């Protein structure tokens, strides 16, 4: 049953450029997918490791900037992508070693400081990053000769990356390592006594999280063909965290729902509601106070409640008949 549902979703997603005729909306879908990858990566840390980061836009941005710098330096796309991801992994390792010196709020503050340093470099080290003017790249890659210039083309490439992300994160979460990670979130002291290397587990999780943030950053670079310091500002990290929290940290697809919510509000609703930051902030506040487990678990609860009610209704009329049949 589940497989059928999943296949259906896959078909719908793959066929999206056909049933959404407008390329503007196809592009929105691409954006949703790339931010969903970012949110999935962040959730490995926030939801599964229990470590809240407000500096992940720094990793996202390092990937985007590194990619742009490689490309403008003459590298081909393949090398540029590898280089960008390598740079992100290196940065993630540095971030992790420093941030893991703190726990709880201390961890958060160190990630803020790190994100700010990245922002400071992006904003001020003009000779490398061009400061506020940002860096643009001229072309998108042509994997196996296929063009990513059109909206559908880019969408399909992004969809593939998204599916890869979901799959790897799902495998990760269901693995022994994933269980270890969740253990360190719930009872770090006990895990230590059971023989687990808590710091190393967290460190590796940070790297994994950083990797996907970097992948999202590369997608972002190719989507916009432009990157600027805005991308690494505190606000960007806050948005990513909002996606994760709004969607629900305890679930695999919660961050995806959060990404859908945030991107749609940012792009589509802003055509109708003038001030989307206000709406976003308000949603954030409401969710944190009233629905701390996020939208996805809340919706699941609602779904189950409705399904139970319906089932109760269905038993009643046929009940008598069933008894005779048995």
């Amino acid at each position, binding site marked *: 049953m589940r497989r059928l549902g999943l296949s259906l979703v896959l078909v719908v997603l793959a066929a999206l450029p056909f049933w959404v005729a407008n390329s503007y909306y196809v592009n929105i879908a691409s954006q949703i997918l790339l931010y969903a990858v970012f949110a999935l990566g962040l959730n490995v840390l926030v939801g599964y490791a229990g470590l809240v980061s407000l500096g992940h836009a720094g990793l996202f941005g390092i990937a985007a900037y590194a990619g742009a710098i490689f490309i403008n330096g003459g590298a081909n796309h393949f090398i540029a992508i590898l280089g960008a991801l390598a740079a992100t992994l290196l940065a993630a390792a540095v971030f992790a070693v420093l941030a893991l010196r703190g726990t709880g709020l201390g961890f958060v503050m160190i990630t803020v400081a790190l994100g700010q340093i990245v922002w400071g470099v992006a904003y001020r080290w003009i000779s490398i990053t061009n400061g506020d003017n940002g860096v643009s790249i001229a072309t998108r890659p042509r994997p196996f000769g296929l063009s990513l210039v059109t909206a559908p083309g880019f969408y399909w490439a992004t969809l593939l990356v998204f599916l890869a992300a979901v799959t790897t994160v799902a495998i990760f979460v*269901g*693995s*022994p*390592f994933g269980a270890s990670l969740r*253990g360190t979130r719930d009872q770090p002291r*006990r895990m*230590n006594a059971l023989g687990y290397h808590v710091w190393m587990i967290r460190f590796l999780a940070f790297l994994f999280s950083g990797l996907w943030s970097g992948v999202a950053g590369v997608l972002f670079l190719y989507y916009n063909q432009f990157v600027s310091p805005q991308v690494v500002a505190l606000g960007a990290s806050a948005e990513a965290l909002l996606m994760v929290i709004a969607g629900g940290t305890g679930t695999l697809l919660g961050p995806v729902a959060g990404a859908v919510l945030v991107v749609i509000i940012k792009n589509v609703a802003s055509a109708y509601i003038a001030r989307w930051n206000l709406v976003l902030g308000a949603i954030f506040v409401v969710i944190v106070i009233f629905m701390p487990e996020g939208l996805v678990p809340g919706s699941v609860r609602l779904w189950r409640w409705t399904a139970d009610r319906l089932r109760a209704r269905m038993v009643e009329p046929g009940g008598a008949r069933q008894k005779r049949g048995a």
Partner: protein
Amino acid sequence: MTALVLDDLEKSFGGLRVTAAVNLSVEPGERRLIIGPNGAGKTTLFNLITGELRPDRGSIRLFGLELTRIPSRRRAHLGMARTYQIITLFPGETLLRNVTLSLLGRSPLRWNPFTRLDRQDALISGARAALERVGLGHLADRPLGQTAYGERRRVEIAMALAQRPRILLLDEPFAGLSIDERRDVQDLLGAIPRDVTVVMIEHDMDVALDFAERITVLHFGKVIIEGTRAEVVADPRTREIYLGE
């Protein structure tokens, strides 16, 4: 070879001497009870043995191996298991998953991010067996939140036993239990095989008396009395310590 030797162990917090020149020696297979009034430094002693705290002075030897330089996470791999005074289980998980995590800690599998934990039959059946041994096999798939306090205490013990330890450190395993639940735990402890050395901390002497072969009495971080059960019970100082000076 002695199972556990504490040699002149010292620990102070600021000006407070919590562990004062403690000498302790436990034979393999022995059932040792450490008692003392609140604040005597019993749990601190355990924390020093497991490595969560570093002693200021002194040494700890497990079956002859000097532990002081060995980080706490490695001590589990050397055969040390412990339960906690306050239940520290994994909420939101089933009993089976809780014990599976305990077994996983000793296995190199714990680093594997590729396979599915659900498919690790050897590990999971081992966990189920551990739960059977403490009489909780029928609740294996019950989420922790839906179990009683007494059952959770037994899960703690199951997790520790699942590690197949050489030495088991029990920190107030009877705390908060009803009379029936205490009996269950007592039976459980009685069934532990002799190849496991057991050291127990208890605050309430009556509850743990049957279990103990030798008793160490701590007060203000110092070992005041040590001997067989009979010796310690007969010693007038024991009464004094508990009823106050």
